[in-house]
């Protein structure tokens, strides 16, 4: 090859080899350290009037790391802000509630790293992300401004989750990463020495978590609809309404054809909520807030299911019915219950009347309801349980009905005066529609919640197992007696299976994932998308059309309810045949599910026929035409869509004067280059051959 070609090849080979031989890294990797074990970032929710939650700039929020352990550090930040500019505060989860308002308020704090060491308890202060008066806007007492509502002991009255943070919050529970932040980053570079701020370089971080929706729910929904993409395929996806399903079961079922219908005040409703929430979408264990009530209700369902035939015939004689209702979305302004009552008013509950189905259920309306017993937070350590009534209902004509059921349960009233208020509970929604339905709410608290972690990321591992199981068993037994007496006029022959409660407690609460114990492993056998189902998530979430993405707690509770209340069909031997039965729609009284026997240890599966159904839990706000989203009548919560690139990077920031030096150097280099170019231009006649064309056609090249 020719001389110049050879030189070109040599240069090319060197260029390619240099990065390989010098173990070349991207410059970015040499500067930034990525901490990516955390999958818990605070996300944004929007309702009819506000946006709450977190937001970062599209390229992330950058600030100097500052460890806050007391208000002294916050004062230091306030005074220091000229020195460093913007801060990312690292704070232990124990102190979060105390300083949440200050962290949210201070504009010089542009991000928060919440550190939770798993081995340490969160201390006696607790942390709840909900407001002091949960669900205040949609409560039945919202008109009554004089009344003080402070059920939830939290240091941030509005609720940490409901502040508009406009800064990202990352939850870190990996011990290695916490050590990196506290030791390698903070103590080595940033911690003030003898009260004096440290010199540069200091350790800084960039947090990126970008939410696309803003302002409020009507805005993001309207913009989604209005957006006309430049091509037909582009859509603007900003936010999604929260939606899932309630699980209900009637026992015995009604049948219009057989003239078995609801009568006035003939239905006893036993209800519990199955959801909780947190600002971190994957941290919603809701153990005391929701799961405790769910386990209690499941235990009662199991006990009645053991004697299902006996119960059903006794109930039919009295023309009474029992409705089990596991409601979803209650912690976010009563999504499930408000929808259930809305459907009742439209006579669409549990399903609309249909002309094509032969044996169909009767529609339940509010005047068929005779009693509501709700289970709300059961089992905190050693505490007594109380029944809560609404003072107006209790001092009215229904007092006797309430007292009768109360006597059966053996609980005492938290407040028996005529100013007694209900805690935040689904029963409130029933009373909003008809202010004379007798009922009460059972909970482990009297005037303030015992649960210091109500609706928060930390609502797990706080219960004492032995005491909680005892409490759940006791409440389940009391509720069972109340239910069977009211519906079937008998209470002997029904027993709570304490081992069942122990198993469920172990499965839902003690174990780290929801499929690590026998019962739930069997329950999740036929469920799709097991990777999601095993996560301890009670948040209602948004939902595409895929069943496989819907709420784990709902899908698992459904299997458990069917297992307790269903009957095995003898001649149905395959999953397909079972599915075929539900497709046939000869009746809508029963549902058909293919699952394992949860209490056996064999591998045989059966087709269970039961009255367990799923009804929509989506706020009526999204159904009603021209609903005024600012009215506060129904839940209007939507969840923002967030950009996929989420990251947390640490790096060292050099002194600001470095930027000045770099700039000056660049200017000097620029001027020098310009001078050289000018010089070369001037002397170019001397350098370049004055006779062009001499080289072209040279035969030796």
């Amino acid at each position, binding site marked *: 090859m020719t001389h110049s070609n050879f030189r070109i090849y040599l240069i090319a080979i060197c260029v390619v080899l240099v990065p390989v031989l010098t173990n070349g890294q991207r410059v970015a990797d040499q500067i930034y350290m990525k901490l990516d074990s955390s999958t818990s970032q605070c996300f944004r929710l929007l309702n009819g009037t506000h946006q709450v939650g977190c937001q970062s700039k599209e390229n992330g929020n950058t600030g100097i790391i500052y460890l806050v352990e007391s208000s002294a550090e916050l004062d230091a930040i306030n005074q220091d802000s000229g020195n460093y500019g913007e801060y990312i505060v690292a704070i232990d989860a124990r102190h979060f509630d105390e300083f949440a308002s200050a962290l949210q308020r201070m504009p010089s704090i542009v991000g928060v790293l919440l550190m939770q060491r798993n081995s340490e308890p969160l201390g006696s202060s607790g942390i709840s992300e909900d407001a002091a008066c949960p669900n205040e806007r949609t409560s039945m007492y919202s008109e009554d401004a004089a009344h003080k509502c402070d059920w939830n002991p939290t240091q941030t009255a509005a609720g940490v989750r409901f502040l508009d943070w406009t800064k990202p919050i990352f939850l870190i529970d990996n011990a290695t990463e916490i050590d990196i932040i506290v030791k390698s980053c903070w103590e080595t570079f940033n911690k003030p020495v003898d009260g004096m701020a440290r010199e540069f370089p200091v350790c800084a971080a960039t947090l990126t978590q970008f939410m696309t929706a*803003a302002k409020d729910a009507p805005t993001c929904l309207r913009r989604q609809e209005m*957006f006309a993409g430049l091509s037909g395929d582009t859509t603007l996806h900003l936010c999604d309404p929260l939606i899932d399903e309630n699980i209900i079961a009637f026992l015995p079922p009604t049948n219009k054809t057989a003239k078995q219908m609801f009568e006035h005040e003939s239905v006893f409703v036993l209800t519990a909520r199955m959801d909780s929430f947190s600002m971190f979408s994957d941290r919603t264990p809701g153990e005391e807030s929701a799961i405790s009530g769910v386990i209690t209700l499941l235990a009662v369902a199991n006990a009645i299911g053991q004697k299902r035939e006996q119960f059903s015939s006794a109930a039919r004689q009295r023309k009474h019915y029992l409705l089990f209702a596991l409601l979803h979305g209650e912690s976010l302004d009563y999504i499930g219950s408000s929808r259930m009552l809305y459907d009742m008013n439209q006579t669409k509950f549990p399903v609309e009347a249909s002309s094509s189905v032969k044996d169909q259920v009767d529609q339940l309306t509010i005047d068929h309801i005779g009693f509501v017993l709700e289970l709300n937070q059961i089992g905190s350590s050693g505490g007594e349980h109380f029944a809560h009534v609404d003072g107006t209902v209790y001092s009215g004509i229904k007092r006797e009905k309430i007292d009768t059921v109360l006597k059966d349960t053996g609980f005492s009233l938290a407040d028996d005066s005529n100013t007694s208020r209900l805690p935040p509970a689904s029963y409130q929604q029933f009373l909003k529609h008809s202010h004379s339905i007798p009922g009460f709410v059972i909970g482990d608290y009297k005037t303030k919640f015992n649960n210091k972690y109500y609706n928060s990321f930390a609502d797990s591992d706080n219960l004492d197992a032995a005491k909680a199981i005892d409490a759940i068993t006791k409440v389940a037994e009391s509720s069972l007696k109340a239910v069977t007496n009211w519906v079937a006029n008998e209470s002997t022959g029904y027993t709570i299976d304490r081992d069942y409660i122990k198993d469920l407690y172990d499965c839902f609460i003690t174990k780290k994932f929801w499929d690590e114990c026998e019962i739930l492993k069997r329950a999740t056998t036929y469920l799709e998308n097991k990777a999601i189902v095993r996560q301890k998530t009670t948040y209602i979430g948004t939902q595409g059309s895929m069943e496989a993405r819907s709420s784990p707690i709902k899908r698992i509770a459904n299997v458990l309810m069917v297992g307790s209340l269903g009957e095995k069909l003898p001649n149905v031997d395959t999953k397909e045949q079972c599915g075929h039965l539900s497709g046939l729609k000869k009746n809508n009284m029963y549902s058909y599910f293919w699952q394992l026997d949860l209490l056996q240890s064999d591998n045989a599966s059966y087709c269970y026929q039961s009255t367990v159904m799923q009804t929509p839990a989506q706020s009526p706000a999204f159904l009603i035409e021209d609903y005024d989203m600012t009215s506060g009548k129904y839940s209007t919560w939507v969840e923002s869509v967030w950009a996929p690139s989420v990251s947390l990077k640490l790096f060292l920031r050099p002194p600001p004067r470095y930027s000045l030096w770099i700039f000056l150097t660049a200017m000097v280099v620029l001027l020098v280059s310009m001078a050289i170019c000018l010089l070369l231009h001037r002397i170019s006649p001397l350098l370049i051959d004055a006779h062009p064309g001499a080289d072209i056609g040279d035969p030796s090249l």
Partner: protein
Amino acid sequence: MDLKKVSDDEKLFLCKRYFYWGLALLPFLWLVNVVWFFKQAFIRPPFPQQNLIKNYVIYSGIGLGLWTVLFVTWQVVFQTNRVAWGASGDYLSFVFPKGYA
């Protein structure tokens, strides 16, 4: 088009045409008029059509000034009030911001 190659009558004709068409809510035509014929109207030594050309350029300039004021005012009003106008603001927008109101 190079004005050097065009006769003075033609120049007057163009300037006039641009002015009148600009009345159809086309302020950029007036901008073109002002920029293009400025030298002809004010800097070149007098020629027979210059007076008329000068008039058209001045009228275009006045119209341009009014339109500028109008546009600037509307921009300021819209940018500062778009969020407060809520739904109406959105109906007037073509592209929506992500992540902030």
